[in-house]
């Protein structure tokens, strides 16, 4: 099948060879170690703790929940005693109220776990509840609650459910390994999702730099008429929701709209497996696969961890850093969009896909120079923006100009900064200004609502 793609984009060196051929290894938390469960690991309302300090919790026990519509519950991945509930650092740099549990090593499971459900005999509502009650969110990075994504407004019929297996971020190989090792689970998870939308086609989009994954997935969906594997050109950001939809269907998600408006639902490989696990194995989201890689890592590889372990735990269990070339920068995720962290003492959350450790040489960022107007940022921006203009608006603080030049449509993929020969902080300045302008917009909307409310009275 012909490989599809989107317009523009960049080709950073992919660095995947370090860990691609390393089979997934299981890392269990050490007995006596503390695990941390931030109450916000998703887009939406944070959860409220359901346990108190001193409580004994079991594997699979729900420890955080919110009554808000947009939220997702959180489960303990170990058994042990709740030591503390306190604010903790999360990978993005925020501090979030977290439950601290000391692992007693018994892995005592709560009753009711491991009870498979037959999704073919369940109603759509029952399936969505099962997915919600398993705490499934988008594991590709955004953390959008999956049960909400799978239940779009009735006036938006779904034609495609696309499994995002592009894995376009350099260095990351978790999705790749899962496709090789758990291909049947991906197919089963996708079939559950297709049950909710019987008129939709299932498409698994994989970049052509992973021929073995394409082969494995094609084999796994043999004989299933409503699922196909779609090869995609290897290009960043191929795994961006909007660009994957465009590549697969030729449809554009309009500015500010969600994929469902274009008749599509997109879910990451590991998310689909989490759906499968919720129904076929009756287990909530408690583990995920993390790529531990980079030039500073002794044994780069892919590790199945219990969510809540700290990155320090992973580093220690996986063999640590090179002594002669230690890391100077560590990144939670890929090098294009993953946040840098100043410490490894941060809990892994549902959306932690990698710990990338750069040596001094790899982490080098050249000095910023004058913009020479070469236009490379314009030629490569997947959204068709003019990053150099937005950068100017950001520098002089021209928020209106920024919005007028569609700055709010930026997907923060970093392609502009990657390409820029003057090494300008394009994406960085645009992201900061975007935050300011989004805040202004939200404040204006809130003020308008308040005014409308006051007038009613």
């Amino acid at each position: 099948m012909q490989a599809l793609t989107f317009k523009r984009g960049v080709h950073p060196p992919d660095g995947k060879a370090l860990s691609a051929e390393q089979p997934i290894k299981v890392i269990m938390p050490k007995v006596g170690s503390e695990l941390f469960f931030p109450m916000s690991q998703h887009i939406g309302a944070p959860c409220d703790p359901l346990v108190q300090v001193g409580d004994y919790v079991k594997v699979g026990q729900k420890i955080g929940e919110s009554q808000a519509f947009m939220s997702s519950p959180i489960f303990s991945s170990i058994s042990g005693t709740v030591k503390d509930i306190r604010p903790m650092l999360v990978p993005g740099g925020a501090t979030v109220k977290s439950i601290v549990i000391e692992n007693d090593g018994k892995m005592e499971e709560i009753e009711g776990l491991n009870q498979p459900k037959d999704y073919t005999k369940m109603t759509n509502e029952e399936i969505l509840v099962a997915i919600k009650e398993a705490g499934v969110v988008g594991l590709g990075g955004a953390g959008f609650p999956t049960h909400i994504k799978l239940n779009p407004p009735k006036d938006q019929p779904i034609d495609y459910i696309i499994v995002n297996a592009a894995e376009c971020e350099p260095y990351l190989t978790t999705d790749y390994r899962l496709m090789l090792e758990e291909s049947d689970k991906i197919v089963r998870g996708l079939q559950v999702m297709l049950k909710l939308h019987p008129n939709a086609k299932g498409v698994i989009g994989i970049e052509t730099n992973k021929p073995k994954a394409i082969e494995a997935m094609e084999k796994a969906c043999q004989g299933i008429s409503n699922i196909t594997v779609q090869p995609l050109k290897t290009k960043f950001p191929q795994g961006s929701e909007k660009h994957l939809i465009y590549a697969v269907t030729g449809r554009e998600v309009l500015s500010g709209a969600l994929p469902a408006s274009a008749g599509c639902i997109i879910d990451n490989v590991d998310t689909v497996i989490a759906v499968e696990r919720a129904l076929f194995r009756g287990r909530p989201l408690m583990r995920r696969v993390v790529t531990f890689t980079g030039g500073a890592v002794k044994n780069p590889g892919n590790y199945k961890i219990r969510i809540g372990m700290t990155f320090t735990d992973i580093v220690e269990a996986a063999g640590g850093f090179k002594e002669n070339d230690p890391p100077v920068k560590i990144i939670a995720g890929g090098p294009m969009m993953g946040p840098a962290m100043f410490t490894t003492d941060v809990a892994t959350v549902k959306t932690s896909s990698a710990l990338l450790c750069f040596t001094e040489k790899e982490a080098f960022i050249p000095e910023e120079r004058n913009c020479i107007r070469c236009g490379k940022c314009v030629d490569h921006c997947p959204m068709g923006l003019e990053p150099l203009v937005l950068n100017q608006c950001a520098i002089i603080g021209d928020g209106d100009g920024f919005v007028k030049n569609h700055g709010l449509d930026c997907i923060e993929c970093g392609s502009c900064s990657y390409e820029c020969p003057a090494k300008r902080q394009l994406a960085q300045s645009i992201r900061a200004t975007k935050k300011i302008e989004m805040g202004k917009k939200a404040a204006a909307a809130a003020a308008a609502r308040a005014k409308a409310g006051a007038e009613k009275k």
Partner: protein
Amino acid sequence: MSNFVVSATPHVRSKDSIQGIMRDVIIALLPATVMGIVYFGIKALALIAISVASAVFFEYLYQKITKQRVTIDDLSAVVTGLLLALNMPSEAPFWMPIVGSAFAIIIAKQLFGGLGQNFINPALAARAFLLASYPTAMTTWTLDGVTTATPLALLKSGDLVAPTTNDYMAALTGHIGGCIGETCAIALIIGGLYLLYRRVISWRIPVVYIATVVVLTGLIGRNGVRVPLYEILVGGLLLGAFFMATDYASSPVTAKGQIIMGLGCGLLTTLIRIYGGYPEGVSYSILIMNLCVPLIDRFTKGRIFGARPKEAKKA
């Protein structure tokens, strides 16, 4: 384990650099430079050396005086100095490239904010300045030690109506009157292809520019003389189209804008060559189009991915 470096994404950068781009431009200009020295001798070499050295010197001096970071290592001043020398006649006095470089670097480039901020091509601005100030010295052409006329002047005066194979060969190899770096068409085409191959420039401006001149001179002609291919081989067109009109700072960043730039340059060059007072119009065409760039960029913004229909209409 803590105290790691923190910075905003992305954490990886391409290997491209301003210095690398400028180095590519210099490499691309080498064939034309060498051919200029071959035909115009040691005097040409001296002019080139003086021009480059003084351009770098003035950049250094200005940045020192204004207490800015000295950025001569980006090689952009070398490119400006080299282009200025290639745009001068071989018999120009030695002080002239010094005055020209000072104008290019200080007035056209640094006073407007330095690299990337110049709204006109510095080398061309300096050439226009020299041409207006010292018209005789800037239009005295010699070849093999004899004062000669450029092919474009001969076309204009009607002394050349039907170029022979020898005339074409002379234009291709560069054995004609003209500025140091503009005579050898083959060298310029090789340089231009190198820039395209290295993706330093896009095809849009040079190809549209040259094609426009071919089409218009072919259609309009000079009193019935229609030699469009000869028209593009002689004069400063190839040097201008590949190396001057494509100057990043003074050309549009949008794809559509670059095509408009090429069209405008081609139209103006043809009009000046055929109807103007000067035999050649490349410099002024590019300079005039340079002035239109902000306007072109403003009206040729590309379509945003996912633009709502209403917005798409507005753009």
